[in-house]
């Protein structure tokens, strides 16, 4: 072996040991990605911060907000934001005194289990930002900026933070912040926030010490082991047949906690399709959610030859048969899938 060859081998061996890499063949990532245009940034940069950075100009009144609410929100959240039976209540649990102190007193009470949105949220910007990006749940980003102001004004009015004749604007929302019932109810001084570089006085930053300091004791760590809680009987069978949720081989088997769950374990493919197609966000089998229950639909059309009409209705959407709330068109749904779903609904929407 020539001397230079040896030297090269040696160098590469040392390189491997020290983690040297091959000669640099690239400097930066040429032709990867491109500058975003101002219009693109405007289209996507919709976040509104607690300092109101990003808040669009606009306004909306409580009364306009009530119209929007009743048309687009009440079906899920209840006429007064108290929620229908399905969703968590948005409004309630706050008092005039809370508005003064900025602490929701009910949060200290162990006998007050409810925790509405307004009991928790400290920053009004959060609600503007969220409604604009995500609500209505089934048609996110469909509200205009002014509609968001209006519907938020209505919610603030329901929570008795602003009067009936209030106009919420990009200017007045700053006053509202000073009246948010739980505005002083947050702390970020705890060890679960990995921020060792606090940004400022209103952001107290990290606490290095975790909440608990258990020790790894190994022997005779306590006189005896006392049970503080056991699975309540009613919960034992509440998760189906556990035997069917475990393997049929191995060191253990699942306990039999329910009827032979063959059926429960093979849900109807149509049910899965309904779930996949988003139908179940508005329909349930036995209760009204946004739309009629599937058993109501089956009952209404029993003995009638309405499958075809219903397939078209599902595809095209529409309202008036069950009430004023419209069913949005299901454009993504294939006709075949619509037929499967309608047949399934008309047969009583069996789960299995």
């Amino acid at each position, binding site marked *: 072996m020539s001397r230079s060859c040896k030297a090269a081998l040696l160098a590469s061996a040392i390189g491997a040991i020290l983690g040297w890499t091959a000669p640099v063949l690239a400097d930066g990532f040429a032709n*990867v*990605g*491109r*500058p*975003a245009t101002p219009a*693109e*940034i405007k289209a*996507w*940069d*919709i976040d509104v911060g607690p300092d109101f950075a990003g808040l669009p100009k606009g306004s909306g009144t409580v009364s306009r907000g009530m119209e929007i609410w009743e048309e687009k929100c009440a079906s899920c959240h209840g006429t007064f934001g108290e929620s229908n039976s*399905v969703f*968590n209540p948005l409004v309630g649990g706050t008092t005039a005194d809370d508005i003064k102190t900025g602490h929701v*007193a009910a949060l*200290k009470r162990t006998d007050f289990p409810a925790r509405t949105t307004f009991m*928790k949220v*400290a920053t009004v910007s959060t609600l503007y*930002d*969220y409604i604009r*990006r*995500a609500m209505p749940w089934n048609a*996110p*980003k469909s509200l205009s900026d002014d509609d968001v102001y209006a519907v938020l004004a209505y919610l603030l009015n329901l929570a008795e933070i602003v009067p009936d004749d209030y106009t919420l604007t990009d200017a007045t929302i700053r006053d509202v912040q000073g009246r948010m019932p739980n505005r002083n*109810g947050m*702390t970020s001084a705890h060890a*679960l*926030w*990995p921020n060792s570089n606090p940004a400022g006085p209103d952001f107290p930053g990290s606490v290095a010490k*975790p*909440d608990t300091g*258990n020790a*790894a004791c*190994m*022997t005779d*760590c306590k006189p*005896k*082991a006392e*049970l*503080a809680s056991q*699975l309540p009987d009613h*919960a*034992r069978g*509440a*998760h189906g047949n*556990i*035997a069917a*949720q*475990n*393997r*049929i081989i*191995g*060191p*253990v*088997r*699942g*306990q*039999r*906690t329910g009827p032979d769950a*063959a059926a429960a*374990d093979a849900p109807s493919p149509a049910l899965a399709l309904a*779930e996949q197609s988003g139908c179940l966000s508005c329909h349930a089998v036995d209760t009204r959610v946004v739309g009629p229950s599937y058993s109501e639909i089956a009952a209404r059309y029993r003995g009638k030859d309405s499958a075809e009409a219903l397939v078209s209705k599902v595809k095209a959407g529409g309202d008036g048969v069950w009430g004023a709330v419209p069913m949005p068109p299901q454009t993504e749904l294939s006709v075949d899938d619509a037929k499967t779903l309608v047949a399934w609904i008309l047969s009583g929407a069996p789960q299995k």
Partner: protein
Amino acid sequence: MTKLRPTGEATPRTDPLVPGADTLSGRLRRAPENFLTADDIRQVGQGRRDFLRASFLAAAGATAAATLSGRAAAASPAGAGGDPDILNPTPWGSSLGLPVAANPYGLPSKHERGLVRRQSPGLTQVPAASVSFAPLQGLFGIITPSGLHFERHHQGWQDIDPTRHRLMVNGARPEFVKTPKVYTMDDIMRLPPVSRMHFIECGANTGMEWGNVAVPTVQYTHGMLSCSEFTGVPLRTLLEDCGADLKAAKFVLAEGGDGSSMTRTIPIELVLSGEVMVAYGQNGEMLRPENGYPLRLVVPGVQGVSWVKWLRRIEVGDRPYATKDEAVHYIDLMPDGQHRQYTSIQECKSVITSPSGGQTLLDKGYFTISGLAWSGRGAVKRVDVSVDGGINWTQATLQTPVLSKCLTRFTLPWNWDGRPALLQSRATDETGFVQPAYGQLRAVRGTRSIYHNNAIQTWQVAESGDVNNVQIL
């Protein structure tokens, strides 16, 4: 299906709809609770487990066609000369099997269909804003099969067209990012990739158990936990590529491209460490749609909600954003009525997955206690296991690899003597932090929180072999 056939009739090998159905449909007594009559169970309850063996022998001797579970048969090479599954031809040993690519995308055995993601009834109101739990009770090692990865969606899941997916990087103020950029998936997949294994745990994992025992099995107590090998690009690489001012930047906002456009604040330290990545790969293939296809954020050590799925935008900023899921949810109610905001780190935690709640031990004798440990602050250093409810502890073996912010599998050999036992595991991470007992955690956080319950889990083993969920303070 559960109808018993007359003794002596050959056992048909039907496709079981229920795991266990094939062993159940024969003339035999099925393991474990199903092969015991009420009277048998009473006897076991009185400590007479040894009679089980005798009853297997009797069953095996009764007829050559008797099909016993493999275990039972192995325990009873008696009767007409041995185990019928050895003495007689098996269907799979005496016929032609299926061709290649019969399942172009392979599926688990039909005998495994009990091990699937499941919802907890009554936990959430609608299935598109809900959770499904991973079946930890049946998983091995540390990697969660992608199809069993837990799910948490706020506005349903989407299967996004990857050719139309974009990632934008911009600044809250123009000076934060010199050149705001747009990347296609083609762009992102050209960048130097890294592959790393990390756990992801929902902040609300074990949240139903803050006040008392509420759910029966480890799937529901701890199943908002998964672990994958993720492949992607460090977010830092992208920020540098856009000329982000990494001194002025204090936080980034991550935003999803789905209907919820989930937004979460990530402290810049995590990004600068190089750990936070923009991932497209999961366990060697692309992300599953339920897990954010084609692009998600991976924030090792931090609760799942920050791992924004269907990631469409990163904004560089200088203060936290107080988004809905950090100002209304994922906030921890403390006993004094204050909420902790921006709770992110998943502290050191562990759980025994086998044996675990809702299971029954087959017999007295040898078992391997096996479970998972993890820490959002780094690697797991050790795990101790107690079989007496925390009075005495034994150090468990950690299986390799033991990686930072990744699940670690621990095991401990155990001879069950048939007496009641209380199984616990207690993990310690590389910072020296020791997983707390329920009493210690509640002393600080009370019982009204939903999030960040990392208390020591107890499984009670009864004389019958049944394992049940209990709590010890």
